[in-house]
């Protein structure tokens, strides 16, 4: 943090761990609260992590803890609507995304949206996603199933497939 000293106030291992956790927490908060509020809440959660990095290092599930810190921070923005980014007109990774997808995702509950985005948009495993959200795998599976079903209805796809 200083320009003329090599010493760091915290260990490099702790730095790396918090930064890795921060990515998951930020994605989860963005999924739950949208890009604007989720980013602010994630910044607050990471700031909290740096202020309490000794405690974070001793936690079994620091990602889940920081996610709840971010939830607390997000309460101050609760009057803001959830906004997800629009899809580009061109293909992304050779896939043309339905422009209705962001609106359909915004129509899900926060838990359903978080589950769907973490697992299917970011490719997290069920255990990893459940850990970040602080819920059980079975609960995550329920949210995921309901979320996908609502998405299919919103996008006009059959629910039986």
């Amino acid at each position, binding site marked *: 943090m*200083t320009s003329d000293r090599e010493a760091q*106030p915290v260990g490099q291992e702790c730095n790396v761990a918090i*930064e890795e956790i921060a990515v998951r927490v930020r994605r989860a908060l*963005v999924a739950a609260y949208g890009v604007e509020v989720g980013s602010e809440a994630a910044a607050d959660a990471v*700031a909290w992590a*740096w202020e309490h990095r000794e405690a974070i290092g001793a936690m079994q599930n620091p990602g889940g803890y920081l996610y709840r810190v971010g939830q*607390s921070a997000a309460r101050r923005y609760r009057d803001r609507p959830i906004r997800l980014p629009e899809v580009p007109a061109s293909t992304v990774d050779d896939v043309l995304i339905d422009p209705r997808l962001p609106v359909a995702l915004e129509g899900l509950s926060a838990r359903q949206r978080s589950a769907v985005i973490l697992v299917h*948009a970011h490719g997290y495993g069920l255990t990893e996603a459940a850990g970040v959200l602080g819920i059980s795998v079975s609960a995550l599976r329920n949210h995921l199933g309901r979320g996908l079903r609502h998405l299919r209805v919103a996008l006009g796809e059959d629910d039986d*497939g």
Partner: protein
Amino acid sequence: MADDRGTGMLDQLASYGTVLDAATDAQPVNETPLREIIDLEPVRRPRRVWPLVGVAAAVLLVLVGVVVFMRDSNPDSSQPAGVNHVRSDVDVLARFSLQWAGPWGIAYDGRDVWTGEEAIVTDPDGSSRPVIQVVRRNATTGAPIQTIPVPQESINAIASDGYGAIYVAGGGDGGVPETTVSRIDAASGTVTFTTRLTSPCSCQLAAGLGGVWLGGNGSDHAYRLDGTGKIAAEVALHQRATSLAVVGPLLEVGLVDSRVAVVDPSSSDVVRTIDLVRPGEGPAGGDRPVVAITPVVGPDKGQSWATRVDGTSFLVDAGGIVTRFLRFNPPVDSVARLGDDLYAMFGPAGFDISVRSTVDASRARIRVARRAGELSSGRPGSLVATAHNLWATDADPGRTTIVVRPRRPK
């Protein structure tokens, strides 16, 4: 076909993850003013708490209903009509107006508060003229104790070294080009010297280390006057200065580029530059000036809190290492330390005093957020801590000033 459609949606979701990450990376963070400070302690087991929250809310509603009923049924209520009842976490001890003085025209000497003011006096021939004076005031009531005329044409800053010397600076701006600095002996109430600086600096003062330092307000130099008024040192800074304070045996100067320059008074050299950056922010720089440097006293003497204009305060230890940081509401106009707490004042108008507790210098934990409600209709000016109270002034002519005493958290 059904499987194809389902897979298609999942493929779209997978690609949408890339869109989400790109949008998140492009999202500016912390640029939106936050309206409230809240404790960032995490929500603990929210499902189990909900029943308790429901019961508490019901009890609260009943209590509120009773209070409202009693108030409505009592026409002789002591609350005047039209007053916005904001729950305050401070007791307002005094409210008065200081005639126009500079932005740093208040200082505390460990016992009394010294203010720079302008008074209009009427001569025997009936004509009136302004008189610039330093007024010694009671730290709790604000009542004037002593008035000392000074030679400045306007007072820009006042500082006390805590050992009986009060320094006053004026001029250095467009109205009065030359900067003059005077020293007042607090015991006798007399001006012991007045020095004119050829290099104008309409800036802050920091007394201590055998004299007084001038710096800040955009100047890229810091000056030291010794106890006789002679210019003992002129320190070139690599950037424009925005604040300064004597911290232990060193002078710390806040710069416009979110850095702090540490000056060794024995050599008058910048011996260290400290970058005030949060993890993940990138290098220091840009437009985040350091608006306040607040020394830590007591066992942790030598540390200081340096606060950027965006409301982030960094605890800098005696070795120049940033060990902790915490966040106020941005933007912060002034910061003061009272006991273990840091207080910040911010606007834009109708300013509040809000607090984040440091608890102790090693934890920097946010303990409580307190609001004092709307304290003035003006823009935030300066915030000065005395032994038990805070003096807050607005920045408008007339300088509405309040003396408040924070209530301790229960």
